[in-house]
């Protein structure tokens, strides 16, 4: 794998081709907030917390850094005005999930009456069960605003009660739904 040089927040960074901006930033010591990222799982791109502003050939664009691959000559801003605006709104919309970033982005309360108590639908439980445990005991039920993680029930239930998904869930929703 070849190496590419890109710029993250004005600092020149070397990265091996094929990795994502998020990975490159992490190894360069730049922290990008995430909610649905987990090194063991395929990038998911759902929480949008890791969005960054990139500049390529004079054109800027907002992308999810967990998915966008590094490119030669790319210039990345991880805390631009647009990016912080997005993160601020995300923290508000997910409230109380994602509170760990509230202080950083100056959110003290949400202007919205938010949906599911503690679940941001990051999908870590569902994806871990499918990708790492290969047991597909969890799935997403419904779509749109009705979407929520659920346990496959009935004769096709495959949950072995390993409990590994509990620790992945920051809001404890998985535990609550089993009760």
């Amino acid at each position, binding site marked *: 794998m070849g190496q590419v040089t890109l710029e993250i927040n004005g600092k020149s960074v070397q990265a091996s081709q094929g990795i994502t901006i998020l990975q490159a930033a992490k190894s360069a010591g730049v922290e990008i907030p995430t909610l649905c990222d987990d090194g063991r799982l395929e990038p998911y791109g759902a929480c949008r917390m890791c969005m960054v502003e990139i500049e390529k050939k004079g054109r800027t664009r907002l*992308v999810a850094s967990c998915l966008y691959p590094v490119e030669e000559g790319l210039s990345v801003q991880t805390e631009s005005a*647009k990016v912080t*605006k*997005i993160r601020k709104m995300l923290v508000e919309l997910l409230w109380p999930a994602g509170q760990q970033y509230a202080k950083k982005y100056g959110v003290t309360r949400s*202007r919205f009456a938010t949906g599911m108590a503690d679940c941001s639908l990051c*999908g870590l439980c569902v994806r871990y069960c499918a990708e790492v445990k290969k047991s597909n005991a969890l799935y997403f039920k419904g779509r*749109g*605003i009705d979407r929520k993680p659920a346990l496959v029930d009935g004769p096709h239930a495959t949950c072995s009660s390993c409990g590994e998904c509990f620790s992945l869930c920051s809001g404890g929703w998985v535990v609550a739904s089993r009760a």
Partner: protein
Amino acid sequence: MPSVRTAADLADLRTETLAAQKAKPVWITVCTGTGCCAYGAEGLADGFESEIDKRGLGRQVGLRRTGCHGFCERGPLVVIEPKGICYLHAQAKDIPTIMDKTVLGDEVVTRLLYLDEETGKRVRTAAEIPFYKHQKRILLENNVLIEATSILDYIGVGGYSALAKALNQMTPDAVIQEVKRANLRGRGGAGFSAGVKWETTRNASGAPKYAIVNGDEGDPGAYMDRSLLEGNPHSVLEGLIIGAYAMGATEGFIYVRQEYPLARKHAQMAIDRAREYGFLGANILGSGFDFDVTIHRGAGAFVSGESSALVNAIEGHVGEPRPKYTHLSEKGLWGKPTCLNNVETWANVPFIVNRGADWFRSMGTANSKGTKIFSLVGKVKNSGLVEVPMGITLRDIIFKIGGGLPAGKKFKGVQTGGPSGGVLPEALLDLPVDFDELDKVGSMMGSGGMIVMDEDTCMVDMARYYVNFLAHESCGKCVPCREGLRQMLTILDRIAGGQGREGDIELLEELSEFMEMASLCALGKSAPNPVRSSIRYFRHEYEAHIREKRCPAGACSALIQYEIDQTKCSHPPCGACARACAVEAIQKIDTGAYWVLQEKCIKCGSCYTACPDKFHAVRKAPVAWPAWQFPSTPVRTEITV
């Protein structure tokens, strides 16, 4: 079964077919499109069939059950060829008269002809009806001439000759160049150049390559793609085969949504017949090109129309958009180069190949060429499917073709582009309809839905309808789209319910901007458009809801109440309103007058509709706010009789 191996075979088959058709001097064409079927067109066609049998006219009179003619408002439609006499609202009881006068005789049944309200004259043919006269019907033209299930009918009108031309006389590259030069832009919404897409797919490495028809038309009020697949499936299929040849695809899919069973049936029949005749399969028309097509039945989610979600669905996964930053033309279905185009885009291809890019470029505006089919619906006199050249103004579509609004109603706005589009006000009626112009004013072409709204439509309610639709039809994966829509819906519910707050409009605008920046796919990015455009052009309506707790259109039920204007009510009162009321909220009091008990009223509007036009005594009035300050039972002294 004649297998067509060469272009000459095809030409012979066409000559034979035309000769066979000519043998019958008169053809009765009954529109059996979805609209006309709802009016009972199937029964009408059966009636004609048995009438022909009964009179023993099987050799002289032919019957064709065709796809949608477009003028759905006046269905069932019957056209008697070759004279082209067009009957509207034809009923089974009219069959003997039509047979006697028009089919066997040389007369017309005047009462079934179109009445031109301006001139007061009846016109005989479709071409003279203003609804058709101002259109430019290319894709829809053959719908009237062929039976959707008959491949011979399609061959008779020149079908598959473009395929023969492409395979025998053109290199794949020449086909791509022609489509590129024609500047055919995707009819599904985004308007991306089809030729460029094909070229990228062709140049991408990997095999096999796939070509896909996106028939997941899900916009409320839109049925263009449905009518093409139902009425002329071979034209879509021919376009697909030509495209596959150009880009080097060997396998194709037609994705048809679950809700379109007839489109699926007809597309399947088209594939089966095409395979029998040698237009699909190995060595098509002796060219050495192999291609075959499978139908994929959608499982009923609006978001599956998004291209990467559609590809996921065909793979057997949940129809959710792919988050990756790679083009489908490079890594699509099963990781292979894939090209997706909308039904209407594919249907344009045979015409471009046959008539050339210059012909196609002669229609339209600088950057939008050709024609576009719109489904013109809502508060318009002539609703139906219309095909117009790009660049025609909204005013021409709505007033010349659509005949304007029903009597006495004032135009308020037109919604184009479905849930991803916007609503445009009267001031923009002279806007030329093309991809870029619609984009500039905050709407979009979309797949071609066009919903006309009159003064009784509330823009807050309209925005709420679309946001509610999207909130339930989004996949719900990414936070901005899912949570953004959830909050938009809450805010709009609040405003429509009279609970709006200062700052709500600004909050909606902030959410709109955020969703456009942060959402994962095009559905989420464009989801705020109905809200944004309605705030942009109808901000005063939002303000009236919030500040005055008043719905100017009288549509938001929480903000209106039904009242009986005693000065207008008949003497003695006819009682139609009370009879129509399902909850007994309209009661007669001692004086003999009727009164609406607001406490009981569920605001269904039945009384409003039931009150005879000559009295027009039931009216919508703003709720006197706050409601609890007003007596819930009628106070007799207030009545003025």
